């Protein structure tokens, strides 16, 4: 241990470690404004990235002072908070409607009122949707870029194999039950499935409640909320699940399904019907390799007093830590990438063509964030590029405007969804689950979560 050689080795290794750690810090400056933008979830189809690169090049040509850098991004409950706290979110990213209000109240989103007004379409937004990204003074904190409604997805191939008509999907819950039973008897696959964990169980239960006229939460208007989980709609939804699972045995044998796994099972042809966001077709094809021919979409049956369809969507927002220059650049990017395709014929066509050339979905049914006429106009513009089998989704497209859109509950949404996960799992895995008792307990626990501060 005394030789100078060994001491030199020790010094060198210490230096090497210090140098490596120094390399961790960000570097690079080339005079351009660097903009990090969220693109797609990890594992997305490489062709989607090709399409993105074309759009990136097009934008950089028009804006030579901005260098856009795409980063993999997906909003996921557990990782989002950590990324937010660690400051590793891209400069431009998307968040769901349910998160926007809390984020903007905590100062986690940049104020973009000036940018939106300069762009000139502040008054074109659907006011109900815009209200979700405004604070009490009316300042705007994000660009609602996409909205969806819940729909009933069904596998046309399984319908045909079971002897059902794929162009006449069920329109009432009784018909859903009958179809599920037929599918499971004739094909051995699960006729109906529902998401049950990672907060998606509560999400879908809420959607199925709303479709039966129930509401799981009441906004008292003064910043407090009252939980109403033990309402008739939720009870009916859980009874329905219980009947399909234990009486008809038409839900298959796997019940631990979240958004990713239920889509996987559907893509693999193991599920006949399930409820979910109407825009999932894009992800089904891009991330789960679904064959377009098997996909069908219809509206969720609405029954009872005052039924509605749960809606959701996401918002393109800017991180509050960027400089003013970067904020302007970010607003330009958001305008180009998310908004212009809705407003401007040339942009809509370019966007649609780029996506279509890379075999990405064009024309997935969505709810308009702007007004209905603008949306109809947009669909007209991109008609020639639509590669999504919209004729397999006519029951949804034709009927969705007759259903009342209902927003997701606003108070402690994700935590209460997590609570309801356990209720749905209990009904599906325990034959003797007492639905009334479960709902009463869930209501109590949820109210405690809402009241605690």
């Amino acid at each position, binding site marked *: 241990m005394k030789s100078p050689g060994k001491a030199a080795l020790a010094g060198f290794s210490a230096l090497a470690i210090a140098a490596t750690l120094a390399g961790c810090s960000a570097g690079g400056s080339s005079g351009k404004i660097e903009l990090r933008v969220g693109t797609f979830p990890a594992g997305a189809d490489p062709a989607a990235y090709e399409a993105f690169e074309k759009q990136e090049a097009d934008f950089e040509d028009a804006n030579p002072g901005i260098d856009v850098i795409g980063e993999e991004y997906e909003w996921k*409950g*557990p990782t989002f*908070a950590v990324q937010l706290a660690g400051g590793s979110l891209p400069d431009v990213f998307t968040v769901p409607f349910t998160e926007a209000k809390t984020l903007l109240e905590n100062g986690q989103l940049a104020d973009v009122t000036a940018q939106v007004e300069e762009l000139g379409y502040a008054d074109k937004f659907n006011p109900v949707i815009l209200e979700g990204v405004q604070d009490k003074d009316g300042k705007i904190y994000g660009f609602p870029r996409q909205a969806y409604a819940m729909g009933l997805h069904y596998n046309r191939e399984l319908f045909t194999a079971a002897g059902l008509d794929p162009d006449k999907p069920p329109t009432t819950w009784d018909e859903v039950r009958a179809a599920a039973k037929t599918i499971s008897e004739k094909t051995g696959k699960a006729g109906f499935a529902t998401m049950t964990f990672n907060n998606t169980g509560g999400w879908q239960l809420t959607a199925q409640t709303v479709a039966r006229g129930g509401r799981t939460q009441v906004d008292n208007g003064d910043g407090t909320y009252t939980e109403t989980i033990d309402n008739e709609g939720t009870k009916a939804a859980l009874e329905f699940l219980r009947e399909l699972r234990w009486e008809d045995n038409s839900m298959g*044998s796997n019940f*631990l399904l979240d958004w990713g796994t239920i889509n996987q099972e559907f893509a693999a042809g193991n599920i006949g019907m399930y409820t979910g966001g109407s825009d999932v077709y894009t992800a089904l094809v891009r991330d789960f390799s679904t064959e377009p021919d098997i996909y069908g979409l219809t509206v969720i049956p609405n029954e009872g007093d005052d039924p509605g369809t749960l809606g959701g969507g996401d918002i393109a927002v800017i991180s509050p830590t960027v400089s003013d220059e970067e904020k302007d650049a970010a607003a330009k990017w958001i305008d180009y990438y998310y908004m212009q395709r809705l407003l401007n014929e040339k942009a809509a066509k370019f966007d649609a063509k780029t996506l279509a050339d890379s075999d990405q979905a064009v024309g997935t049914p969505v709810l308009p964030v702007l007004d209905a006429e603008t949306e109809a106009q947009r669909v007209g513009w991109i008609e020639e590029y639509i590669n999504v089998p919209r004729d397999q989704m006519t029951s949804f497209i034709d009927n969705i405007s007759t259903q009342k859109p209902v927003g997701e509950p606003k108070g402690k949404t994700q935590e209460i969804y997590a609570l309801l996960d356990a209720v749905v799992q209990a009904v599906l895995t325990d034959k003797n689950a007492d639905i009334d008792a479960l709902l009463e307990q869930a209501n109590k626990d949820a109210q405690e979560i809402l009241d605690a501060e």
Partner: protein
Amino acid sequence: MTTTQEPPALAIRAAIEPSVGPQRPRRKRTPATWVRGGGLSTLLFLLPMLFVFVIFSWSPIVQSVVMSLQKTNLLTPATFVGLDNFANVLADPLLGRAVLNTLYFAGLALVFGFPLPILLAVLMSEVKRGKGLYSALAYLPVVIPPVVAVLLWRFFFDASPNGVFNSILGWVGIPPQSWLQSAETAMPSLVLEATWAAAGGSIIIYLAALLSVPPELYDAAEVDGATIWRKIWHVTLPQLRGVLFIMLILQVIGTAQVFLEPYLFTGGGPNNSTITVLLLIYKYAFQNSLGGNYGEATALSVMLAVVLGILSFVYFRVTNRWSQS
């Protein structure tokens, strides 16, 4: 034999090998002798490791303890709330469930997962040829990345009649099981995979330990007319006592902190039947997408660490007395 202060590695060695020869005479230590003895280069070599430990191990531990006394979600500034977090965690109904599930998992792993590697090691040590092959096969599950193994097993655990395991059971006439899909069978399924994944490491250690058992003892037992089971019970196990004690406490501490299997297999379900203490900590910290309750998460972590620490201390005191008898 061993003292309670020695780290497990030394304890295992001391249990297997006889103690070393006479001690060296000590000399007077001054700063000069320290430098001459190469103390400076020792320190230089130590520095990187110390640096890494401080940044990645000790400082987060200290920070956790501080956070357990705060109300923080890492987004808004933290406020000190004293022992409120501990009180809230203890009042959480899920905590009772999580502790019971963790004890259930640890208990099952102990009853089924602890004797199995010993048995396999004894059997493998009796084999005349192919020992290397069997050792490699036994260790293979350990080499597979845990997440990959769990996802593979999740596929095998498919509860439909043509799921992999259900098909195999069908060949011998056993009806399909619900594996992860029902509250009764979920935890045993988890233990099954966890045992499969961890047995290999234990087998290798026991195989090495078995080499230290003097063969004369077996010969003597044979002369007295012992069957193979009595040989194992009366010769092998007592000789392996030190190793067994260490492996036992390591297993208990390890299974008390099980996270991967419940998280990836079932997310705590169905209906909270597989939620464990560590998964609960994860949920406190990360379930809320808008900034979790890191105060409660770290409070529960601190409590778990203290409980495991006390358990280990008591265990070493008790086994110390046994090993010296």
